[in-house]
């Protein structure tokens, strides 16, 4: 009969997607592959509590500085505020938590379990699982083929998007938890997979998708590979690309390559993409930046040949296409426009057309894989072979850094349950700053995702466009996006609707015609509560006044018979 409030979390949640106290939630939190506590973060940032916001983030994600800059922000695409006056710039707020949160004491490691876990791959997935496994008290070794840890964020994301000190600092936090790292150690080359398994109680494969795809066109061998170019640039090389450069592809890597080519001295850089520009998977900000830097984006074009003379690229042939769509098996097909063949002169062609896994190191010990060569896992990231887990691109196909982090965290708890038998559905950061099982907080059903139309109290919000950070298009190797100022971040965080999470504003109390509700709790922590539920008319004025859509209803037994 009286309302039931879906509450904001009051301590950092490490694992647990269904909470009893939070039975309604926002599209953004559901959309975040890393499981970031977005609304708790916006609450704290709005109050200027950046350090506390960062602490909540670290409970789910060891790399908020990276995701706060590079994530394709699924949250923002899902944000209910987009239907009013523009989505909340959640990614910038995550970065602001890092920028202004200062140095946070690391979480305390649990008592040692005596179990040893090996993780193959030192990218976001591998390091995330290492971070949580170490905090859970396990002995963890990460095997990394490259000289440096960090994976794609270190090797393939341009420094003007993600400064290297951010990568260093966040990787350092993982190592500070007691994680061992063996760099320059490729499993399958420097040590056999069998030996790694033999030495471990469990193994997580997190080798990503390191192989670059090519295209089935004449002269493809003369094209450069996008991630390779980015990697070389990231390592300090200055690959000679010439003055006219064409990048093939429409994802973030294509934009990174184009913007990098401009920084390496190319005057005329073009992106050729086979579908329409609106279909480009690259984040909108990245295509906007590329365009602002003078990059030309040509949609609905496919390359049909790369031309070279004496091994030096002279140009390419392209056709206009239409009606690009995926067929029943997920392959993209396009209709070439007859007579649209054109030659385009250029000095280099860069393919940024996707990545593939490389599981050769497993020899005959590979677990079940999909047709595309991705390792099949269950919800706990366990592969088909006992004691073997997989996380990140190797398990899901090329995705995002954020997804790799989320899978890495899930894999850690999957391994933990496998090794210790502790299978709580919820883990929190406890008062002693270490991870604690808290199964009693878990709900049996997933939260209801609140849609815009369910937020009747949306009239409480005045129109306010998103705040814009400063961006430089100066083709510098310095970071192009300045991030928010403190004040900007606090103002932007205030735009959050807090969909499905009570923000303790008390409008429901003010509007209850039966004076059934009241604000109760310690000073400064008052929140609406049902005080006289027996006098409730269940008129739902609490719900229609609520600016968060945070209210559901319960009915006493006498109303159910």
């Amino acid at each position, binding site marked *: *009969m009286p309302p039931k409030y879906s509450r904001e979390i009051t301590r950092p949640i490490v694992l647990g997607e269904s909470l009893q106290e939070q039975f309604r939630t926002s599209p953004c939190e559901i959309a975040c592959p890393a499981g970031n506590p977005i609304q708790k973060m916006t609450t704290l940032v709005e109050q200027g509590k950046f350090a506390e916001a960062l602490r909540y983030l670290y409970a789910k994600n060891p790399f908020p500085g990276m995701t706060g800059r590079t994530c394709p922000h699924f949250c923002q695409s899902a944000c209910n505020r987009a239907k009013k006056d523009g989505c909340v710039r959640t990614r910038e707020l995550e970065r602001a938590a890092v920028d202004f949160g200062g140095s946070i004491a690391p979480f305390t490691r649990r008592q040692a379990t005596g179990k040893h876990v090996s993780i193959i791959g030192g990218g976001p997935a591998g390091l995330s699982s290492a971070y949580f496994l170490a905090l859970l008290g396990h002995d963890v070794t990460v095997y990394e083929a490259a000289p440096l840890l960090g994976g794609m964020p270190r090797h393939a994301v341009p420094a003007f998007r993600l400064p290297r000190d951010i990568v260093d600092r966040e990787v350092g936090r993982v190592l500070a938890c007691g994680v061992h790292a063996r760099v320059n150690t490729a499993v399958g080359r420097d040590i056999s997979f069998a030996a790694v398994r033999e030495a471990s109680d469990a193994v997580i494969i997190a080798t990503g998708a390191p192989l670059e795809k090519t295209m089935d066109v004449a002269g493809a061998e003369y094209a450069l590979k996008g991630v390779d170019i980015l990697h070389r640039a990231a390592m300090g090389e200055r690959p000679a690309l010439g003055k006219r450069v064409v990048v093939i592809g429409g994802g973030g890597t294509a934009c990174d390559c184009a913007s990098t080519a401009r920084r390496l001295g190319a005057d005329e850089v073009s992106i050729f993409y086979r579908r329409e520009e609106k279909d480009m998977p690259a984040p909108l900000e990245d295509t906007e930046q590329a365009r602002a830097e003078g990059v030309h984006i040509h949609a609905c074009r496919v390359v049909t040949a790369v031309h070279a003379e004496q091994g030096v690229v002279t140009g390419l042939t392209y056709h206009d296409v239409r009606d690009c769509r995926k067929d029943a098996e997920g392959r993209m097909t396009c209709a070439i426009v007859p007579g649209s063949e054109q030659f385009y002169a250029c000095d280099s062609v860069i393919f940024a057309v996707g990545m593939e896994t490389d599981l050769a190191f497993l020899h005959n010990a590979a677990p079940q894989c999909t047709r595309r060569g991705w390792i099949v896992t269950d919800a706990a990231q366990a592969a088909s072979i006992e004691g073997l887990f997989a996380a990140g691109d190797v398990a899901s196909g090329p995705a995002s850094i954020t997804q790799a982090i989320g899978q890495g965290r899930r894999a850690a708890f999957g391994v933990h349950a496998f090794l210790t038998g502790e299978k709580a559905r919820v883990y929190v950061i406890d008062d002693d700053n270490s991870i604690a099982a808290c199964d009693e907080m878990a709900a049996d059903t997933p939260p209801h995702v609140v849609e815009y139309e369910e937020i009747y109290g949306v009239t409480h919000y005045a129109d306010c466009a998103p705040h814009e950070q400063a961006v430089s298009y100066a083709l510098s190797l310095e970071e192009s996006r300045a991030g928010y100022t403190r004040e900007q971040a606090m103002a932007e965080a205030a735009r959050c609707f807090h969909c499905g999470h009570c923000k303790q504003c008390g409008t429901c109390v003010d509007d209850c*015609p039966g004076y059934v509700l009241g604000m109760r709790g310690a000073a400064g922590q008052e929140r609406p509560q049902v005080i006289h539920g*027996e006098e409730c008319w*269940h*008129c739902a*004025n609490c719900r*229609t006044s609520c600016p968060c859509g945070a209210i559901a209803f319960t009915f006493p037994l006498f109303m159910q018979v």
Partner: protein
Amino acid sequence: MNTSQSTLGTLIETDVLVIGSGASGCGAALGAQAQGQRVLIMDKGKLESSGCLGGGNDHYMAILEEDSEFDGADDLIKFYAKPLNGWTPTMLREGWFAHMKPLLLMLEKAGVQFGKDAQNRFVRTQGFGQPGKWWCHIANGMIIKRVLGRVVREHAIDVLDHVMAVKILTDGGKACGAVGWNVLTGEFCTIRAKTVVSAQGRSATRGTNNSTHNPFNVWMYPYNTSAGVVLGYEAGAAVTELDTYQRATMLPKGYGCPGMNGINSSGAHELNAMGERFMGKYDRMWENGVRNNQIQGTFTEQMEGSGPPFYMDMRHVPEEVVKELQYILMPGDKATFGDWAECTGTDFQHKMLEVEIGELIFGGTVAVNDHFETSLPNLFCGSIFLYCSGALCGGYEAGRQAAMRAAGMDSMGQIDADSIAAARTAAFAPLNSKGDISWQELEGTARNVMNYYMGFRRSMAGMERALEKIRFLSAQASRLHAGDLRELMRCREAQDVLNVCELAILATMQRKESGRCVYRLTDYPELNPDMAKPLLLRKSADGPEYFWGKAPLL
């Protein structure tokens, strides 16, 4: 408004005071404001959620002169101008019909979503035994009161939220204001005005129980305790319909809500325990007939053992109709309906909906003449007609009339400090008392009396016992104790319940007949043709004076 402080509390002056901020109060405030008068609207609740309309509304009754038949003012008059209720053709034409369409368009412009057809005409359906299709469907009914509240606030109308009126002030036998107190802060307020509109609704439900025995789990707004009748009566105005506005509706078993109009008019069949569709025995329009007949009919079946259970069966109704009913109209009428339906597995399309006869309303209103003025000069009443549409339109006319009167007045009446001081002492008495009974005990006992003696079958002897017992309870009111302001508010409401129950018993004992209302009086089982007129009650030193018909007073 002008506000000042005195030893009596806060003093506010305005031109037109509207008591009650539900649909009729909002209508009254808008009607008065449109005449250019200063208007103040007061309610113990908050404008955005107060009144029956605060719980939502799925239909708005409107005669629009669009259809070829049954869609004009004369049809409204023919259907509603009955000797019994005292609604005259003038009242219906000027007070309801004239405002139906403008206020419908006002609501639409403000954001209420009405169903429209391809020609942009309002989609309307038929109900309540009416001859024409008069009911506009509303898609976002759960926010209609918020929309109306916003309109009121945008019209430069002063709003006094959270202030419970406890007395209408008079000067020389004319209304000149009211006193009340803020239920959150205890602030005592005196409002002086040239004219006053009573707009406190007609329906009060706390006099009886439904099967859940929770007096707040009911059809109509449970926070209305007929204070409009009580305040009007105490001020000397004649009150009416105490004997005939005793109503009930069928409820989904266990869930207090409006909505039976939509269910009945969807083509639903009511079935008894034997699975028989029986309403044809009681109304020639079956389930779509007069609501009293549905209650009478169901009660008769129940007395004969043909139920419970009773069901509304909508399984044969077209899918699109049922879908709109369950997922749009019912949640619009009561915004928690969807939650309750999910909790209980209610599914109109595939399962029968068990229903019960709900609580019996003991309500009524202050009697008015063709200008919506009561027998107390300068006191008008807007809570005359039925439904959201009737409340809003009737309220609008009452406000308009009150403002026209105020516009012609040079000054407002004098207020009497002694009378105000006495009202304040009485209002706060339970807070300061060493009393030993709670509002729950007093009010709950009153419900026991009414449930026992004042049900759908009654006798004169039973009503005499009821009167005796209600008066005994009223005599205990001095023992009430309130621990805080909220309990103080409920203590006052409990006394309202007792007062209106007493008036209802007295009025019903005068109406020595059966058949004009939902109850039957065993001693007088037949209709008395001489009683086809309203009964008015006016306070005198010896108890109420009774008047048959409106003419003697108005």
